């Protein structure tokens, strides 16, 4: 076979089009807009105080030790570590609850038929359309009447029924073959055993995705903890950061930025580790997380 015969089979060099260049430029600018504030935060923290905002500003960190000193100061002189613990517990309990209730409900809705299933599903989906601002007052009143203000259950319980999580899991569980459920029934598995031994393990990917999304959302939740747990012993990271940023705060901008950075670090680490799953999860649910 001659070279000429092979030649047409070789892949052609792709032409770089104007549209491709424009798309890349747009993507670059969006990435820049997203990254710049985080970078600015790192820059301010790991620099001599005042340097990045001086007449001769720097766009790169100048003093690693200064940053460490500020982090040490915040951890030792404020209740930041305690807030970390509260936020962590708040996130973990919420994740556990959302996964448990969401998966049990999704199991029934996705795999079984029962009276009014479609209507109930529609009602749950409708609740996704209602803005949080509308429900926050009745939820607060109910929580207050239960005597749950400034308690962990007050923080956690109202967030356990996640319509979004439910929807994500229903979508996933619908893809589980019916034969498999029937095989388990014939194998003598009870309703709960089918859920526990067959459906939950098969939904592992969806559950992990939901856990990640719930963590991101709970960690960043500012409004609900602010309303339901205003006592300092129940402050979450978000609230503490809020205090640092408040109008009468006497902290300098570099200390405030350190508090902000510390709050952003756990979700950032989480995102970097689970980046692929988060993107998959958002694609799977077809909605914004």
């Amino acid at each position: 076979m001659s070279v000429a015969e092979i030649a047409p089979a070789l892949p052609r060099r792709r032409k770089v089009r104007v549209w491709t260049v424009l798309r890349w430029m747009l993507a670059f600018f969006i990435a820049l807009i997203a990254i710049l504030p985080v970078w600015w935060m790192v820059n301010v923290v790991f620099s001599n105080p005042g340097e990045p905002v001086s007449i001769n500003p720097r766009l790169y960190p100048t003093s690693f030790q200064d940053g460490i000193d500020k982090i040490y100061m915040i951890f030792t002189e404020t209740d930041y570590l305690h807030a970390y613990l509260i936020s962590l517990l708040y996130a973990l309990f919420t994740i556990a609850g959302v996964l448990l209730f969401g998966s049990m409900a999704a199991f029934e809705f996705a795999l079984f038929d029962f009276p009014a299933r479609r209507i109930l599903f529609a009602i749950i989906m409708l609740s996704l359309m209602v803005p949080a601002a509308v429900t926050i007052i009745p939820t607060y009143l109910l929580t207050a009447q239960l005597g749950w203000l400034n308690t962990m259950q007050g923080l956690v319980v109202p967030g356990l029924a996640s319509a979004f999580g439910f929807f994500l899991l229903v979508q996933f569980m619908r893809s589980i073959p019916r034969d498999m459920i029937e095989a388990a029934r014939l194998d003598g598995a009870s309703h709960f055993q089918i859920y526990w031994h067959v459906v939950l393990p098969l939904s592992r990917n969806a559950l992990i995705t939901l856990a990640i999304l719930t963590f991101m959302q709970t960690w960043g939740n500012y409004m609900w903890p602010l309303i339901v747990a205003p006592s300092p012993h129940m402050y979450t990271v978000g609230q503490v950061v809020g205090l640092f940023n408040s109008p009468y705060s006497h902290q300098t901008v570099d200390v405030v930025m350190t508090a902000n950075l510390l709050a952003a670090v756990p979700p950032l680490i989480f995102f970097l580790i689970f980046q692929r799953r988060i993107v998959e999860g958002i694609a799977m649910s077809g909605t914004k997380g």
Partner: protein
Amino acid sequence: MAFLDINSVTKTFGPVQVLEDVNLSIERGEFVVFVGPSGCGKSTLLRMISGLEEVTAGTIAIEGEVLNDVEPAQRGAAMVFQSYALYPHMTTAQNMSFGLRMARKAKSFIRARIDEAAGILRLEALLDRRPGQLSGGQKQRVAIGRAIVREPRVFLFDEPLSNLDAELRVRMRAELMDLHRRLGTTMIYVTHDQVEAMTLADKMVVMHAGKVQQAGRPLTLYDDPDNRFVAGFVGSPTMNFIPAKVAGADASTVRLSAIGGTAEGALAFAGFDSAVATVEIGVRPEHMRVLADGESTDAPVVLDADVVLVEELGDVTYVHLHLPDGTRLIARAERGLDSHEGRMRVVPDMKRALLFGPDGARLRPAAWTAAA
């Protein structure tokens, strides 16, 4: 009382009636195959026996015990699904032991049962693999193994070989027959493939439109079908049906005209009902003889037909023909047939021909019915 009795079973899904007055008796150790076209209700009947579908009316009983309200797992039936329905997150051993684990059997007991089933199905080397690491045939064997370990009273197979390629299907068919011989357990098998049904079945149950059309030994159904549907469904290529008018009948013969449009002839038939004006003559392709060019014959019926297609399959040749009235025929011929196109004369063996009435029911000679 048979081992498994299905009495007047009916099934409806909303306004749709899927099964209508099904009656069937299955003996212990029989290999029964439900066969019929898609949507005939065969899988629904199997699922009703398993307990996965409820019975709308009628009863299903095993060894005299009515099972209508018994939980699927308590019926002593194990099912093998078309999709295998293996749990993808469990190994072969875990898949096979799932039922026993749910029943909280002792570990040593479970181990022994798995080893036994794995030995029967040659799965020893695959016990630690997950379904994703198995081939189609291996998955099917695991699915059967999962059924075996439960030592059921009856095995239910729902089109278990449909997802396998042709060669593997033939091999698995032989393995299933061997398994049935070794275990001696009652097996009920659903398929739409009549070749599979004929090779496997002790008793073949042909179903159509929610009704059992005929049940019996495969060759009985082949030779002596009760109606046009069974005659047409069993056998490949399918039986030829040639329309004809009844010209007259006496005590022992029926004279037919306009056979396939133009031919005439007589058929030995005792006690033909003179009220029947039109019939269909059923002749299998192997009972049609193709006449060589210029060959003379004294056959009672000779059909002139146009050749549409000649299928030469090596061991056998099938000639597709069109009769003057448009009826399509298939005749089996010898290899090396010279008239590949144009017209051809074929002789149906009228001694083996069957008659069907306008409603599709088989018309049987009076004496024959009495003898049967």
